[in-house]
């Protein structure tokens, strides 16, 4: 291999060699190289195989525009797929492999596919694999498609920091225009952030000999020093990958290879696009051969990396920038042959190794072909933001037209390809002035694909789309560019058509004989370059996404050996003690039924509704009539959606004439509060109703069981606890040590229960006293698992578990308000729809199985005799410790009329029998409840 490294040029650090391998072979580059520049320096040109035909490919570009050299890179045992070699910094010990090639890019076993290209044109899959069934072929095709393989091991600690940021002026692109503009803006007193995706600022400036009497590196250092001196910030290796709604710019700031970039969500008052322009390929036969490269790429490889890509170079360009390139490459020792591609069709000669270039009968013996069909401004971000594009005939390019809010384009991105003009434009814009359109020296001869030309001419290198494919698409009437794109997959690869879109739409324009701007462009969508998924996950993950709510009594529960778990967003005791979970829960249930259970019910909703219109308001909110509720009393009720569906159940207590406390279910507090607020503010007078959610400010300790009254009596509350003075469904307020205490006699177990509420700062004292008072009676703390069994024995439902998105209140046996309640309430009309009146609605039932039978699985379907249809399903199912046999609740079509019927319950292939019964297995008369 010959070395292509020059003696002096470049920004690499020649004192820092870097060893790496490519396809298993060892090479050496330098600090500051990219994988592509290091391989080119070592004379390696075949860096990948094409997507469809497995054609050998080498780099076309020197940066983000390169579609060809894509590698899987392994470093320190971690592998990263689909790294573009032209932008991946070289790191010691990197092991790179070409994607889509085996065993190597140079000798790919599937290279033979290229011989069948005649049969593999656009739409080949659609047409070929229709019969008998696409799914027969799909696995094989999926296996062959795609580029790199994703490593099975997710990289550890690959987490992006996320920064929300703001600046007055964001300059995107740190070339000559970007630097000059950022400096002018910073010196005018603006808060400036300048970003560039290269590690070293300057864009294409390094190709220059001098700028304003300084060397490029000196000039760039001057600008950066001035920007920072004026308080500006500069971010190298930072890609602006997308502009989103309301001017949000996504910035990916890359650090060391293999670490997740930092994400900056940047809001800027003003965005200056100085993103530059790309050389677009010339469409000719064999234009995809390794050794055919962009003119600008060859200059960049030389200027930044000291790599001279070839010795004998054919320069096929249609524009005035070729002169500078010729001078620079000649100076570095290359022999240049100028070709005018517009003077006649050219074709590349040779295969893996380029042998020359032919034009008509003339052959040029060259080892490299540099091509440019003119410059295409990088207007991706402009289009993301909704900016318009105008066709410029003089430059043969789409340029920024009508601007999106707060955005301006300068320099090559704006079609200002001449350095002096770009600098004066940048400085004017940076200082906040208008820029004068100056005379331009850039000129070119239009050069576009010519339909009907011979040979295979590549339009899209990365997705293997040729001129013939575009012609085929046009013949089959896929003429809109959006259809063309999807039919041929032109521009759909990971480079998103940076090099191919213009050629593709120009080809379509030529085929249809329409002017190019009339054909239009496809939609530009973020991201500008592929970025890790990390850039797209929200800033709230894991704990931050859904912070656990913590109980004031958590230390007490931990001390009591609670098994804490998440239930409805709260970290709460599932059960207490260590040992067999089932046994522990069983013991808690029995202790609650035989003596008493002490339960932390603090997550229960405690939403106060107050004010002169409170009564009418809660009467409207609830399905049940609340108006008739007397102060000091409690009522059980449902809240419905306007669709008539049960959204929450719970009790409401009326403390005084104008003050209610809504005790909604633990998991629904936030949604109920939102629901109440929405109706309070939109539809009512918000000055006459006030909603105050005290759920987290108050804690609740529940004593439930036959000994509950005796235990409560031991607390010095000074209340008459007799059933006459303090009956079921009433509430009392008292004080102890100047702390208000509210005691509600209400039950979720079927046994006599008291819910004692106190402000959270005093809860631990209350808990300790209740536990101490309960101990002589054999009362123990119980967790939510035991409570779930206790309530299921009694047939008390949990909304969302024993109901679904179609359950209406009459399906749960609460029918009277639907028939009798006169004033309007939420969901009322929906309860009389055709659907609500259907006789076969799913209704709540109990399901009994024989003694000694296993528990019915929750979720099992109740099916008709032929197993052809589900009639409902099991919603809650437990082995009842109290009753000594399983109990289950379910929703069943026409359930209330089926009592006594034996139904089939199907689960995982097994069918069992169950008897439909009333949804209450414990104390159906309510004697214990009212004791």
């Amino acid at each position, binding site marked *: 291999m010959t070395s292509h490294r020059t003696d002096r040029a470049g920004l690499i650090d020649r004192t820092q060699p870097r060893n790496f391998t490519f396809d298993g072979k060892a090479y050496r580059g330098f600090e500051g190289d990219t994988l592509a520049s290091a391989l080119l320096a070592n004379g390696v040109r075949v860096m990948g195989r094409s997507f469809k035909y497995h054609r050998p490919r080498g780099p076309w570009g020197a940066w983000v525009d390169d579609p060809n050299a894509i590698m899987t890179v392994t470093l320190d045992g971690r592998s990263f797929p689909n790294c573009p070699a032209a932008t991946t910094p070289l790191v010691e010990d990197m092991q790179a492999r070409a994607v889509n090639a085996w065993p190597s890019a140079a000798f790919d076993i599937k290279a033979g596919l290229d011989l069948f290209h005649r049969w593999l044109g656009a739409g080949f899959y659609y047409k070929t694999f229709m019969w008998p069934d696409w799914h027969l072929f799909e696995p094989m095709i999926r296996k062959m498609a795609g580029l790199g393989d994703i490593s099975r091991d997710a990289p550890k600690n690959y987490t992006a920091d996320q920064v929300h940021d703001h600046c007055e002026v964001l300059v995107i692109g740190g070339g000559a225009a970007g630097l000059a503009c950022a400096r002018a803006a910073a010196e005018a007193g603006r808060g400036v952030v300048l970003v560039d995706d290269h590690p070293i600022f300057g864009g294409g400036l390094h190709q220059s000999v001098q700028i304003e009497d300084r060397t490029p590196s000196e000039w760039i250092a001057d600008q950066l020093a001035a920007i920072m001196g004026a308080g500006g910030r500069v971010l190298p290796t930072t890609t602006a990958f997308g502009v989103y709604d309301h001017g949000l710019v996504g910035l990916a700031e890359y650090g060391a290879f293999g670490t997740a970039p930092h994400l900056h*969500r940047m809001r800027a008052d003003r965005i200056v696009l100085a993103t530059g322009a790309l050389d677009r390929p010339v469409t000719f036969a064999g234009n995809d051969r390794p050794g055919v490269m962009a003119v600008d790429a060859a200059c960049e490889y030389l200027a930044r990396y000291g790599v001279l890509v070839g010795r004998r170079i054919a320069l096929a360009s249609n524009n005035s920038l070729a002169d500078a390139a010729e001078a620079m490459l000649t100076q570095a020792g290359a022999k240049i042959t100028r070709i005018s591609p517009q003077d006649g069709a050219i074709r590349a000669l040779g295969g893996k190794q380029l042998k020359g270039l032919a034009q008509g009968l003339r052959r040029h013996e060259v080892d490299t072909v540099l091509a440019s069909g003119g410059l295409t401004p990088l207007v991706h971000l402009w289009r993301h933001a909704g900016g318009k594009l105008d066709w410029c005939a003089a430059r043969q390019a789409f340029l920024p037209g009508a601007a999106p809010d707060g955005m301006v384009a300068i320099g090559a991105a704006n079609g200002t390809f001449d350095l002096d003009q770009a600098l004066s434009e940048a400085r004017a814009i940076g200082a906040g002035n208008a820029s004068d359109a100056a005379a331009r020296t850039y000129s070119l001869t239009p050069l576009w694909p010519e339909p009907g030309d011979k040979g295979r001419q590549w339009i899209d290198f990365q997705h293997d789309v040729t001129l013939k494919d575009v012609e085929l698409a046009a013949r089959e009437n896929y003429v809109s560019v959006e259809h063309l794109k999807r039919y041929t997959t032109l521009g759909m690869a990971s480079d998103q058509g940076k090099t191919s879109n213009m050629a593709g739409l120009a080809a379509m324009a030529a085929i249809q004989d329409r002017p190019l701007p009339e054909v239009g462009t496809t939609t530009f969508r973020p991201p500008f370059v592929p970025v890790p998924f990390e850039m797209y996950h929200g800033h709230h993950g894991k704990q931050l996404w859904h912070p656990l709510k913590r109980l004031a009594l958590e230390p007490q529960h931990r001390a009591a050996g609670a098994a804490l778990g998440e239930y409805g967003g709260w970290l709460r005791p599932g059960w207490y003690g260590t040992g067999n979970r089932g046994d522990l829960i069983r013991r808690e249930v029995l202790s609650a039924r035989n003596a008493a259970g002490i339960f932390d019910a603090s997550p229960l909703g405690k939403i106060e509704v107050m004010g002169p219109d409170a009564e009418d308001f809660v009467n409207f909110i609830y399905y049940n009539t609340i108006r008739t509720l007397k102060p000091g009393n409690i009522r059980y009720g449902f809240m419905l959606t306007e669709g008539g569906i049960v959204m929450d159940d719970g009790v409401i207590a009326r403390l005084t004439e104008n003050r209610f406390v809504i005790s909604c279910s633990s998991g629904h507090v936030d949604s109920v509060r939102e629901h109440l607020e929405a109706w309070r503010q939109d539809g009512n007078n918000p000055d006459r109703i006030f909603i105050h959610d005290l759920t987290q400010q108050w804690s609740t300790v529940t004593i439930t069981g036959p000994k509950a009254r005796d235990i409560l009596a031991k607390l010095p509350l000074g209340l008459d606890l007799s059933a006459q003075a303090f009956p079921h469904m009433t509430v009392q307020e008292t004080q102890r040590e100047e702390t208000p205490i509210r005691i509600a006699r209400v039950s979720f177990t079927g046994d006599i229960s008291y819910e004692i509420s106190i402000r959270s700062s005093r809860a631990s004292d209350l808990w300790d006293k209740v536990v101490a008072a309960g101990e002589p009676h054999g009362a123990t703390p119980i967790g939510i698992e035991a409570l779930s069994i206790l309530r299921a024995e009694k047939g008390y439902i949990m909304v969302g578990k024993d109901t679904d998105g179609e359950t209406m209140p009459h399906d749960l046996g609460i029918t009277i308000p639907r028939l009798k309640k006169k004033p309007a309430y939420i969901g009322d009309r929906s309860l009389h729809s*055709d659907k609500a009146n259907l006789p076969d609605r799913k209704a709540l039932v109990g399901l009994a199985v024989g003694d000694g039978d296993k528990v019915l699985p929750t979720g099992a379907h109740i099916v008709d005799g032929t197993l052809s249809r589900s009639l409902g399903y099991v919603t809650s199912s437990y082995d009842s410790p109290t009753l000594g046999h399983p109990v289950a609740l379910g929703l069943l079509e026409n359930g209330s009329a089926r009592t006594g019927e034996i139904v089939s319950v199907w689960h995982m292939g097994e069918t069992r029998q169950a008897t439909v019964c009333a949804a209450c297995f414990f104390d159906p008369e309510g004697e214990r409840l009212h004791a």
Partner: protein
Amino acid sequence: MQIFPCPFCGPRNETEFHFAGELGKVRPDTGKEVNARDWATYLYAQRNEKGLVREVWLHLTCSELFVMERDSLTMDVRASKSLRGDAL
């Protein structure tokens, strides 16, 4: 990410808001007979206009509903105003 102006808290990220409904949707008086078509219209029919729209949004962090005028095509936000007092 869009920025919405809460009339009480100022400009905030859209993630802090919930859409509550289109402005001007009036609940039929269910104290009287409401035919199925009118009720279904109330429940399900949305104008879903292209261009200038007026909507009710909820700012989750302050629990206030407000009216926002915005362009459903360009995503421009024109104005926002408390639900109290004169609507936009």
